[in-house]
């Protein structure tokens, strides 16, 4: 009797808990293991896009079962479930299955990207802008270019919406000095090409351009094919990670000279004024070659 009573009470509570508890969410992941960290119980996976969760990218994941971290090896192809805890504050991999071990030892696991150094030339990477037109990263010769990375669904006010708001302020200020304005260009690149199609980018851009489409002449909103985005991320050493059920990325702003060389990176702290000053300075500075020539003619 006593044990039945306890059983009954437990059952009632179990049912209440089951009725009130909202389940965690699960997403299917497929990809290749690039690295593992036994101490942190993590594996880094280069994964395909996870519908409803995030685009294809490489990032570290916590693993529920430490034994699995022992078992998998870099190069392995895996299928797994990403479990996002209720509330979205935590996530991890469960039910990891190794689907192919053939990559072990034979697959050269790529080293983490090394960003282009200051002074290096930007690569030719094709992007697709808000009009569906192909533009090239090295197509802004003669203009100082300020480049940043976003995705339009990014909800964190201190991340993408802030970057775009700051770019909007810079754009408005530049427009007041037409001489300098003409020698500058802004470029906002989304790394969520599946959602951020040309029409979505156009709508996003217009919201930051006071609905004036003529602003696109000086400010492109672009995305690219996944392979090109990967090249872009590698070129600028972007690190993607994931936080609170959102795509997060190392924030980066890159200033590129009219000679198409990297001038400066900002990754943690900056002000709108600082960015604008640097862009103006670069746009109006005589190129070193011009200066050398001028010096030589004396």
């Amino acid at each position: 009797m006593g044990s039945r009573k306890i059983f009954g009470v437990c059952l009632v509570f179990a049912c209440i808990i089951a009725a009130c508890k909202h389940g965690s969410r699960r997403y299917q992941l497929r990809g290749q293991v690039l690295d593992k960290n036994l101490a942190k119980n993590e594996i880094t996976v280069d994964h395909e896009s996870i519908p409803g969760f995030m685009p294809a990218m490489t990032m570290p994941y916590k693993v529920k079962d430490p034994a699995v971290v022992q078992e998998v090896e870099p190069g392995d192809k895996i299928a797994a479930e990403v479990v996002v805890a209720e509330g979205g504050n935590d996530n991890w991999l469960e039910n990891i299955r190794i689907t192919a071990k053939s990559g072990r030892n034979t697959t050269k696991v790529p080293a983490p990207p090394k960003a282009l150094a200051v002074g290096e030339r930007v690569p030719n990477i094709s992007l697709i802008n808000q009009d569906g037109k192909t533009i090239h990263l090295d197509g802004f010769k003669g203009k100082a270019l300020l480049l940043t990375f976003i995705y339009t669904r990014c909800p964190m006010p201190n991340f993408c919406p802030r970057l775009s708001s700051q770019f909007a302020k810079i754009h408005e200020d530049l427009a007041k000095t037409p001489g300098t304005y003409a020698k500058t260009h802004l470029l906002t690149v989304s790394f969520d090409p599946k959602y951020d199609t040309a029409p979505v980018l156009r709508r996003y851009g217009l919201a930051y351009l006071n609905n004036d489409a003529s602003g696109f002449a000086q400010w492109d909103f672009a995305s690219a094919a996944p392979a090109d985005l990967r090249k872009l991320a590698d070129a600028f050493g972007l690190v993607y990670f994931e936080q609170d059920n959102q795509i997060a990325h190392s924030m980066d702003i890159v200033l590129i000279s009219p000679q198409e060389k990297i001038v400066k990176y900002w990754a943690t702290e900056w002000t709108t004024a600082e960015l604008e000053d640097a862009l103006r300075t670069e746009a109006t500075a005589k190129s070193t070659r011009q200066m050398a020539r001028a010096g030589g003619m004396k």
Partner: protein
Amino acid sequence: MRRVHLCFLWWWLALIAALLDIWPACSDQHASQRGHELFQQNCAMCHEASNLDLKKQPPKLEGLFQRKALPSGAPATDAQVRKTIINGIGTMPSFQGRLSDEDVNNLVEYLHQLN
């Protein structure tokens, strides 16, 4: 033996009664509780904050449905707010793919109670 059986039956009846009693309150509370959580995670950082470094300050959402219209001038209806959350509006991001239909319904439910 018989007494034990009766006790067993009693416990099952108690269990069913308890569940029937608790269930509706529990699921109602669940919807707005869930809506509150979703709001804190997805909306509060913009709509409850001030002095954000943003082009447009997000409007306060208290009493949203008591107003004649939404801040944008669109009708203050559930359908319109649902659409706003899914598609975004102006500089507000879209939540497509991140919130389920059920999430959006829970959020709308919660916004009705936000006064």
